[in-house]
């Protein structure tokens, strides 16, 4: 579904992502793990078009790396941004409406129902401002908002950040469920253990390059990964 070839991201003189290659196959969960500043978020931003990268990004075989962000989003990619970034001044329902911005009016109602089924808490609070939600609830809203566009590829940037372990488990269960329903997912995480348990395939990013890659279950067993990312001796 997504092929990234020799991707480079520069911020001025800083070379944040240095020629990485990876694939996200149809129907799979792929995770990019790594420390803070390894280039994970920059990679996602490059894919969605928020930063202009060098290299090739093929989505369903089509080169998208030079398209503007809103057209990339319309072509079927959604990003749940780091820090959730829900629109705190809009209601929950309005946030969902923003997510389904390019949907026809008659398509919206069934989509709302679907989201409320997936995240019952959002239904109870549909008319509240998103700013009144807790961190975990905002994360669910951010995911629901991204799903409103019915993306073929769902990308998440650090969805576990700042959430209590119980809530993280809940969020990851939902991701697993979404994947079972056929959604392709690209997950960026610092929480390597959780991410590798969930994913089919993993890439370890270090200083903007891919240090390791492999089946997620294999990476979980890998000594190097265990030592550096799972905090084991």
């Amino acid at each position: 579904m997504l092929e990234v070839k020799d991707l480079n991201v520069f911020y001025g003189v800083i070379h944040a992502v240095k020629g990485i290659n990876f694939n996200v196959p149809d129907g799979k969960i792929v995770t990019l793990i790594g420390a803070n500043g390894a280039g994970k978020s920059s990679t996602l931003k490059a894919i969605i078009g928020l930063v202009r990268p060098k290299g090739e990004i093929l989505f369903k075989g089509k080169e998208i790396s030079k398209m503007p962000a809103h057209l990339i989003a319309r072509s079927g990619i959604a990003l749940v941004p780091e820090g959730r970034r829900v629109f705190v001044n809009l209601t929950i329902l309005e946030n969902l409406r923003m997510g389904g911005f390019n949907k026809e009016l008659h398509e919206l109602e069934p989509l709302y129902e679907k989201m409320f089924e997936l995240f019952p808490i959002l239904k109870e609070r549909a008319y509240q401002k998103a700013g009144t939600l807790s961190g975990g609830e905002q994360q669910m809203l951010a995911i629901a908002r991204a799903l409103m566009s019915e993306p073929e590829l769902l990308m998440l940037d650090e969805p576990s950040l700042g959430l209590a372990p119980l809530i993280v488990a809940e969020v990851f269960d939902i991701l697993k469920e979404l994947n079972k329903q056929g959604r392709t997912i690209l997950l960026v995480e610092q929480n390597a253990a959780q991410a590798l348990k969930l994913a089919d395939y993993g890439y370890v990013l270090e200083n903007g390059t891919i240090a390791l890659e492999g089946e997620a279950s294999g990476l979980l067993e890998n000594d190097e990964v265990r030592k550096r990312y799972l905090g084991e001796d």
Partner: protein
Amino acid sequence: MNLTIVLQQLVNGISLGSLYGLVAIGYTMVYGVIRLINFAHGDIMMVGMYFAFTGIAMLFLPWWAAFLLSMLASALVGVIIDRVAYKPLRNASRISALITAIGVSFFLENSFLVIYGGVPKAFPVPSVFGGAINIHGVIFPNIAIITPIVAMIFLMILLFILHKTKYGMAMRALSFDFETVRIMGVNVDLVISMVFAIGSFLAALSGIFWAMRYPAINPLIGIMPGLKAFAAAVLGGIGSVTGAAIGGFIIGISEILVVALFPSLAGYKDAFAFLFLIFVLLFKPTGIMGEDLERGRF
């Protein structure tokens, strides 16, 4: 001074205030989405006046057609200004855009000076807006009654757009978070153009009513009302549309009342708007409706 005069002055103040409010909305909306104080906004009032003047006095259109065309053309001017002057600076420092706005202001003033000359033109006031009505011995000029009604109608339409349409929703979301709106598949440039179009449309509307109130127009006429409308926007809490309308009313009413109550201070009437602004900001630095400067609110 008796009640009749107070009432007359109050209506007068509300009418003037709604003109400031209409312009203040443009300041506040543009600031809300791109964090720019568009100093050329007052000049759009002037552009609207001259377009309407041209429509009526030179092209002999019926007044309503001239007014409508003027507002639409001014909206287009606003959009073009953004595309040509501000859009290339979207990622530049804010001060660059601010200075550009001042440059655009000079450009508009001087272009119209070249085209129409510096001699004030008599704005042709349609008869519907002339005259006055007498209610129980209190005389109200028609224009003073019609102005706030028209302003209210357009304010309602605007609030409807902001809260009930998806593009209005995008405008409100944009005032909070640019990047995230883009990844929702929203063409942000289009939304910003709409904001400029709405703001300029309302400024032209205000300009036309201003011209019917004070029917001698010149190319620099937009400066002072523009500045006061800016004061109104800050007073109301910049970023808030309702705040802008309220700020406009406060500035308009206080200006008229100061002159009515203290005729000897009439020469200082322009200063009072700003004095009032300073006073309010001392106690509420974010303005009346402003709560959190980091968050969009309209």
